[in-house]
């Protein structure tokens, strides 16, 4: 019985914690650094929603909101449709500025907002929104450059020059009392204002003019302040994804109960558990050096393919002939050192084949086609078989009279001489 010192290979929990503590702490420090950098550079980044009153970045509109506040306008930031309606109920005379970056609102929702408010300013609405809300107005592509004031809308008149970067609109149908301003050529206007019911609707496409970055250029500030500052209260409504209310059939998300998503998550966790169960190996493998497996006949196969690729018929045939001749020499009782002529004579005598043909097969014929090679190779086998058969019959029939041997079946030998038993040297 052998006893070995016991050494546990698997590390203990404490050991593995100690071993991994360096890397875990490195990752933690790295995360902390990333977090700190993110906090420090947050204000300078271009992140945050465009035209948001809470975004101090270049594409935000915090500057505009702050100036409006300082001018005595109460700016309410509504982050959802529900919040916007709530704010409107509190201050029914407020203007509403709709910033729909996500494009989630539909015409009917804009309609409701318009009904409740005195002045609705819609920033860069899309085609399908306008189709439901004001089908006479349609987007007319992008606009760039500085536009001159060209109408009597007070905001535009006050601005005189406006940064036009954004979207342009065009009236595609008769719309009574519509004012079109900020022409950028070919009838494309960046501002359309019209009255509906007892309220005023302004559709404006100059997004750049309202951003922190460009609000101070040209007459952008005047345009924005005049448009949004018409009332003492302004509801700055920024759409969110929850406003994407679909009035038609309920979605699959609304139909499924709340726990289904949890159950799906659980299914994923079950698969993870399955991987943990099956993936844990039962101890390390034991190494073993295995020998290479080389078949000895590989060289023979390789040489055969070389013969075949280089179509060396004569060389192959000569090899076969040498082998056959040495075997035939032994069979004919001539010994290994017999000459070819002796073997030819011996085969002819024993089998009774035509000597010329035997010599051709054993020595002379040069194979020009594959078929010839095959034929000669078959004849060589036939010789060996016939000689062996002849010898066995002759030894068996030494006592009886030598019967004429049956003519061997050969694949087309050129007129074998009639077998003449007993004919010898």
């Amino acid at each position, binding site marked *: *019985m*052998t*006893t*070995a010192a*016991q*050494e*546990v*290979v*698997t590390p*203990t929990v404490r050991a593995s914690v100690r071993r991994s503590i360096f890397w875990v702490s490195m990752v933690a420090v790295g995360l902390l650094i990333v977090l700190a950098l993110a906090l420090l550079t947050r204000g300078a980044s271009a992140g945050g929603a465009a035209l948001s009153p809470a975004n101090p970045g270049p594409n935000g509109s915090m500057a505009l909101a702050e100036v409006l506040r300082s001018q005595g306008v109460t700016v309410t930031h509504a982050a959802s449709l529900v919040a916007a309606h709530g704010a409107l109920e509190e201050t029914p005379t407020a203007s509403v500025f709709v910033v729909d970056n996500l494009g989630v609102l539909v015409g009917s929702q804009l309609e409701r907002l318009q009904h409740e408010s005195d002045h609705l300013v819609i920033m860069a609405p899309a085609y399908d929104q306008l189709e439901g809300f004001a089908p006479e107005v349609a987007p007319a592509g992008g606009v760039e450059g500085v536009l001159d004031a060209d109408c009597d809308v007070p905001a535009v008149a006050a601005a005189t020059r406006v940064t036009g970067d954004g979207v342009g609109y065009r009236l595609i149908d008769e719309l009574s009392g519509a004012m079109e301003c900020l022409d950028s050529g070919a009838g494309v206007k960046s501002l359309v204002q019209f009255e509906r019911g007892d309220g005023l609707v302004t559709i404006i496409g100059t997004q750049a003019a309202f951003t922190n970055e460009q609000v101070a250029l040209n007459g952008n500030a005047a345009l924005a302040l005049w448009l949004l500052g018409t009332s003492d209260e302004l509801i700055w409504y920024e759409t969110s994804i929850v406003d994407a209310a679909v009035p038609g059939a309920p979605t699959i998300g609304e139909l499924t*109960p*709340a*726990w289904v*998503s*949890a*159950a799906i*998550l*659980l*299914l994923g*966790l*079950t698969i993870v*558990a*399955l991987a*943990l*169960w099956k993936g*844990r190996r*039962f*101890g*390390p493998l*034991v*190494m*073993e050096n*295995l*020998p*290479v497996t*080389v*078949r*000895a*006949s590989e*060289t*023979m*196969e390789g*040489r*055969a*393919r070389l*013969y*075949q690729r280089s179509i060396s018929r004569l*060389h*192959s*045939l000569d*090899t*076969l002939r*040498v*082998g056959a001749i*040495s075997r035939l020499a032994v069979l004919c009782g001539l010994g290994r050192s017999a000459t070819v002529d002796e073997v030819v004579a011996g085969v002819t005598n024993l089998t009774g084949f035509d000597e010329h043909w035997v010599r051709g097969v054993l020595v002379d014929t040069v194979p020009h086609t*594959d078929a010839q090679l*095959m034929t000669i*190779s*078959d004849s060589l*086998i036939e010789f060996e078989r016939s000689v062996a058969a002849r010898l066995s019959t002759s030894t068996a029939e030494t006592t009886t009279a030598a019967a004429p041997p049956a003519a061997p079946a050969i694949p087309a030998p050129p007129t074998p001489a009639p077998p003449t038993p007993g004919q010898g040297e």
Partner: protein
Amino acid sequence: MAFSGWFVALVALGVVPIALVGEEWMLLVWLGVIALIVALDLVLAASPRRLHFERDLPARVRLSETVETTLYVTNDGRRRLKGRLRDAWQPSAGARPSRQPLDIPAAERRAITTWLTPVRRGERRAEHVTVRSFGPLRIAARQATIRLAGSVTVLPPFHSRKHLPSRLARLRELDGRTSVMIRGQGTEFDSLREYVRGDDVRSIDWRATARRLDPAGGQKLVVRTWRPERDRRVVIVIDSGRTSAARIAGEPRIDTAFESALLLGALASRAGDHVSMIIYDRRVRGRIQGAVGAELLSRMVNTMAPVEPELIELDWAAVPGLVRSVTTQRALVVLATSIDAPGASRGLLSVLPQLTRSHEVLVASVTDPDVLEASRSRRDLDEVYRAAAAERALLDVARVSAAVRQLGGDVVTGAPEDLPPAVADRYIALKAAGRL
């Protein structure tokens, strides 16, 4: 740490409370419950580190035989350990079963049996034991791998021992034969016995007959009997170079050489000859000298067991010196190598004269039955070319064989299963002819 299938089922079961409560937070509650159960199970599981192991291994086993190994596992801890155990052997040790259930009460010992059926010769090692100890709930397990080395030497199979009885019978026939046919240099006078009908009349010892006058009257003839000479020397040199690594009919050449050497060794030591064996490539990989009887065979198989062919050429120039270091007397030198091509056998041919000058040399080489088969099969063009290549290989072997014979050696070739008896037969023939 490891988990069982029940753990997966437990996780999946969480769908029931989640559906019943119908809230998403139930998922977190369920995960908490699972964590608690797993922690409890792990805490309550017996520690696999508190086990103590002892191995009981047989020292050696013949290839392709099955041997039983025992692992004694003592539970030094205070809790009953239930779980599974893996005794980690190398793949070619053929350990079975590879996973075994384990149930050891505290402070008790159990024997775990593993059967080994090795598929390769040499030293087969076990390195460690892995134990997975499940908690009472069988949800989670503690797992530890404990280093516990062990090894079993796998000996050559000696399949050719089935030929031994018939060859020994042939050897006994040589013994005590009176026939003049076997009288030669290598035979020596054994004893006198009474003439029986059939004895060669030329072996009648007339003087002994005259001396032995039957008192009852009548003359009994006495004949001399002869037996083959004993105490001859047989030196077997096995080539462990690169050509011995090639496989013929699924068996490396070196294994066939081992089989031949074992059969010849068994036979020659029974016949009273001294058998030495050298396994050599560029250094001596194994050497048996001065062993007789059963000890010879056991030493031979033990020496052969770990030897694998090296990827180097045999240094033939050193072989005569090696043989001289074994014996200076005339001996039968059996060279178990390969004679494939004239170029590769140049080393052998160059030292052969030195050996044949003072010894009887027999070169034993394996031939490939595939090659012989290929040279006869010529059904299509591919096979004709293959037959030509096979014929070329056979002619090469024939040329080297002729060269060896010309230099005074003898050649035995055969397929892997035919070579060992062929070598034994040649030995018997040499012995009968008194040429040892």
